């Protein structure tokens, strides 16, 4: 069981760009979702968690390691598996060679053991039949699977995946989500994404980032509860519903138009209250929250 404690973390890049402001979260074992639009500061937070970037202010503790110190950053590299958003590979290496090389960098010094681990992981990500093909011939989905395989080489206690399903087709996305769910177990997995569906299908707990702030943290059901009474199905003759709302979808039926909206309507005629899904709740949260919320321990 490994807890990650982030306290009042700030990151300001050279040039005064505030990427994250006063972020405080506690993450336990299992899958944790980090959700937010592009530019919310997720990748910066992830890079601080992986020890790539140093925070400007604040405290970060991963398990027994203080990641603010150089020693802490060195130590977490041994327990970390990371799939970056911009996952670059060496195109002239085959999948097997790439994994073997990363295994060497991860300190798996015994050649036989390393090669056995590579074969196991190729099997897990279903890439054994193409393992001798050069990576430059791989599709985006196959590269992502190689990405997750390399992250698992050292059997990490902490697995961080940043936007793992971006650019994948629906089938690949589902396959990838299932793979992540299977890896849960005793390790901590942080899934950073802007795709609500990925979180809905895999995580019990999540945080939402916006403009460098955490605007929500809690369980999926907490987030769903926040949008209770705010999601409506409005059927009109074609006129758009009005109010402080976000239209989630518009369905043209014979003789009428059905809108799914989140927010406060000015006119409730023809509106039926409905159960929110996670996407509705996320939109409601983004719509409602302008300031960081009070800190809760998950």
């Amino acid at each position: 069981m490994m807890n990650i404690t982030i306290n009042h973390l700030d990151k300001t890049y050279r040039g005064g760009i505030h990427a994250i402001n006063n972020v405080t979260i506690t993450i336990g074992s299992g899958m944790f979702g980090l959700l937010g639009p592009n530019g919310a500061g997720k990748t910066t937070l992830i890079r601080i968690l992986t020890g790539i970037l140093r925070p400007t202010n604040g405290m970060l503790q991963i398990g027994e390691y203080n990641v603010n110190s150089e020693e802490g950053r060195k130590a977490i590299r041994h327990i970390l598996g990371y799939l970056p958003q911009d996952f670059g590979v060496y195109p002239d290496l085959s999948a097997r060679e790439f994994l073997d090389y990363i295994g060497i960098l991860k300190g798996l010094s015994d050649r036989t053991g390393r090669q056995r681990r590579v074969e196991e992981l190729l099997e897990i990500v279903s890439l054994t039949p193409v393992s001798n093909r050069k990576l430059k011939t791989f599709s985006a989905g196959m590269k992502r699977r190689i990405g997750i395989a390399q992250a698992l080489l050292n059997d990490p206690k902490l697995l961080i995946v940043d936007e793992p399903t971006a650019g994948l087709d629906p089938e690949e996305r589902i396959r990838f989500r299932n793979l992540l769910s299977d890896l849960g177990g005793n390790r901590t997995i942080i899934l950073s994404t802007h795709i609500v569906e990925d979180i809905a299908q895999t995580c019990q707990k999540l945080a939402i980032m916006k403009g460098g702030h955490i605007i929500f943290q809690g369980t999926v059901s907490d987030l769903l509860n926040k949008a209770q009474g705010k999601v409506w199905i409005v059927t009109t003759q074609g006129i758009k519903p009005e109010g402080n709302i976000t239209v989630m979808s518009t369905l043209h039926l014979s003789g009428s138009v059905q809108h799914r909206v989140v927010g406060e309507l000015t006119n409730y005629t023809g509106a039926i209250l409905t159960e929110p899904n996670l996407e509705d709740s996320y939109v409601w949260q983004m719509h409602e929250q302008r300031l960081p919320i009070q800190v809760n321990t998950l």
Partner: protein
Amino acid sequence: MFQDRIWYELRIMGIWVILIPPLTILTFVLLGLMLTIMQVDHLRISQVFTASLEMVLPLSAGLLTASIVSYDTAIELQLTMPKTYRLTTFFRLGLIIVWTSCIALFSSVFMYHLRFWRVPSQVETWKVLPQFIIGQLTWIAPLLWLVGVGFSLALCIRNRSASSALLGGIWMIEAIFYGYFAFTDWLKPLFLFPTTLDPTMSFWLSNRIVLLVTASVLLLLDWFLLRNTEILLQGITIED
């Protein structure tokens, strides 16, 4: 594991890292043969061969270094590895230097034996072995200097073309305006190619030592610059 590591690093850097040094020497051997057939003055042929080791091989190593340090497709992943990116970069640099040095040393034995090697006046009266050994500074000093400068430029600019162009520019200035370097006191320590262009000069040995010291300082500086991950991540999005 060490052999595996060498093999993978060479594969990642590309075949050119292996091919460029011997191809450079081969080109100059062919040029030398052609000049011999044309009965060109022996001194000129020696100058051409010495230039291959003092001027061209170090430039190729510097350009390879700039190219490899400027860009790594998997840099973000590398920065999370227990074997640090800093060590990986210096490992790659070591391979470039060692391989180029092997080719240069091997070539210099033949050039020296066949008297196609320009011997600086300062060591001309020395015995054969010390003369040959110290004579290796002909290529070692500019090799390390251009590698060090290429490394620094690549880290500061983070652009393969720009850092290579700047390094090439420095090389051309040294080659074209060598008179300024040979006769201006404060430029003498930075004269990269005295053996090829004017081996009679009296400051050859001190020049080689200054170049080696400068190269060491630059490589030390590069070691510290590699700690700055924000610089290394330039070119990859940081705003998210």
